[in-house]
């Protein structure tokens, strides 16, 4: 196995080992932090599909993160108040069941990604970056000013949603749920990278003309990737909302988009485990630097700058050397 492969295994195992140890040592907060890492990593894995593999620099992925969060918030709040979401033309009731919420989050964020992607992918380069940012802002302002679900105050959900057979309020069990979903996403991406679709998407990033000339529509390939990417980020948003038992418009803010992007870059763009390493590093930094100074964001900025300027492969790139793409 390659060096990167070993690093990946070490990474995913330590993400499991830390909370398990914390469970034994009675450090529940460490479990919460690890859950956060797993959920952010999932958001990053989603973005990385569009950004790393597809070369689509989306500065609007907070839109899907937020949609996933609100899918959870709206369903759970209606279940809490026993008020149906919709009565006409058909009865839709709220739910506290995680699998149903996840499916809804996947479906809705997928549909939103389809709409945003269909328009945004007509443009390229900076225009694409900016139009995705604009769609994110649109949803942000909408979520703030629409009072039905709390507006800027957000929407608190008093108890965590249910998963059959598990006690989700137990931190370690909720961690395991998030961890397993992250692992499934990683397996999916690793298969996708080697699949027909992965080949076409990767080639479209390198040369649009090449792909078009063999009769494959790059627009459709990219749109598919964008939708899948949005769905994964949407699912992570639903989990994040469940972790906090709260959703708010700040999930939609452009800083959230920036942070998800930071996870990807810190870890290493287009690396399978890049977002995992990046999210872990970000959370650790947030805690270490946050303890040192009120002005810790300066240090985060400097570090980020150093990674972009001098360590382009990110954390995994530093440890594993340059990637071997050919296969």
């Amino acid at each position, binding site marked *: 196995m390659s060096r990167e492969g070993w690093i990946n295994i070490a990474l995913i195992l330590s993400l499991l080992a830390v909370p398990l140890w914390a469970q034994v040592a009675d450090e529940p907060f460490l479990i919460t932090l690890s859950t956060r890492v797993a959920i952010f990593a999932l958001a990053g894995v989603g973005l990385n599909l569009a950004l790393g593999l597809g070369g689509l620099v989306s500065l609007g992925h907070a839109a899907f993160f937020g949609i996933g969060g609100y899918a959870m918030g709206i369903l759970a709040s209606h279940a809490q108040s026993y008020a149906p979401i919709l009565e006409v033309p058909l009865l839709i009731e709220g739910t506290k069941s995680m699998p149903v919420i996840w499916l809804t989050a996947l479906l809705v964020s997928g549909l939103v990604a389809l709409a945003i992607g269909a328009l945004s992918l007509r443009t390229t380069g900076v*225009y694409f970056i900016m139009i995705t940012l*604009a769609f994110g802002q649109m949803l942000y302002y909408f979520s703030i000013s629409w009072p039905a679900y709390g507006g800027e105050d957000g929407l608190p959900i008093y108890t965590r949603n249910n998963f059959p057979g598990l006690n989700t309020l137990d931190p370690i069990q909720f961690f395991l749920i998030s961890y397993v979903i992250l692992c499934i996403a990683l397996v999916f991406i690793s298969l996708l990278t080697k699949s027909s679709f992965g080949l076409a998407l990767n080639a479209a990033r390198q040369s649009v003309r090449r792909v078009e000339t063999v009769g494959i529509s790059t627009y459709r390939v990219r749109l598919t990737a964008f939708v899948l990417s949005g769905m994964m980020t949407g699912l992570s948003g639903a989990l994040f909302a469940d972790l906090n038992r709260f959703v708010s418009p700040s999930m939609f803010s452009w800083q959230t988009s920036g942070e998800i992007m930071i996870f990807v870059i810190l870890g290493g763009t287009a690396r399978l485990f890049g977002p995992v390493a990046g999210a872990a590093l970000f959370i650790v930094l947030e805690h270490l630097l946050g303890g040192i100074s009120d002005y810790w964001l*300066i240090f985060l900025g400097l570090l*980020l700058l150093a990674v972009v300027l001098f360590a382009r492969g990110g954390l995994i790139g530093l440890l594993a050397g340059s990637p071997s793409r050919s296969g």
Partner: protein
Amino acid sequence: MSLVLFIEQVLNGFQFGIMLFLTAAGLTLVFGVMGLINLAHGSLFMIGAFAAASIAGWTGSFVLAIMASLAAAAAAGALVEVAVIRKLYDRDHLDQVLATFALILILSEGTRWIFGSFPLYLNIPSYLSGPISLPGGIQYPLYRLTIIIAGLFIALCLRQLILKTRIGMQIRAGESDREMIAVLGVNISWLYTLLFALGAALAGVAGGLVGALQSVQVGMGEPILILAFVVIVIGGIGSVKGALVASILVGLTDRLGSILMPEAFKLFLPPADATLMGSALSSMLIYILMAAVLVWKPTGLYGVRV
């Protein structure tokens, strides 16, 4: 709505648009010539406002304050260009987005470190304060009128600079063909630093001028940054003329939208709901405008580059 009120709102839209133009012009020039997308442009706007507030507090002179905003932002721009931006020209947009995002964190928190968390004081000088009467019985604040005139003057200077001077020629050469300016024997890195500082100075002046109207505080640059991006994308990235047209368009849409949307909804909704719906929709209006323009013309109104 009365005609006087409508005209006043149009003037407000113009004034808002002119401010956006000053911020967006530098951004679009830097992209057009260097191909660089700079998220930290809003921080230069903020630096201009802080410099103006400091100098105004120290000397009491508004003119000196505005000159300071120009000088400080230009200096900060040049410094940032030499230290960081220069290494980003031949990188892809992703690296540029990330590096300049990092610069926002550094510049914002650095400013807070130096100036503290409390907003600073900067006010309109007495000789520009208060409203004046325009023909037709319109009362309009003199300071805002000054901003419109000063902004148009700066836009005109910029046009002359680009069309009539040697530096302008080099800039235009750089826009059409980056290798060309090397052939002309121009010191490119010097030209780039100068151009970046020029863009920063424009943003800084905008910051100083706007600072007198609003609150000078950390984070004031981000909302204006996003609006400036909307402007240059609508105008076509790299086109100064496009930026001017789009600025006015965005300014008018935003100002008139926030007034007309609730009124329009009142035609078929109860007033409270109409205010709510209208306000919600008007806050999204310029983004809807941008999406519509891009769907219609994927490279903006005056854009040619892809």
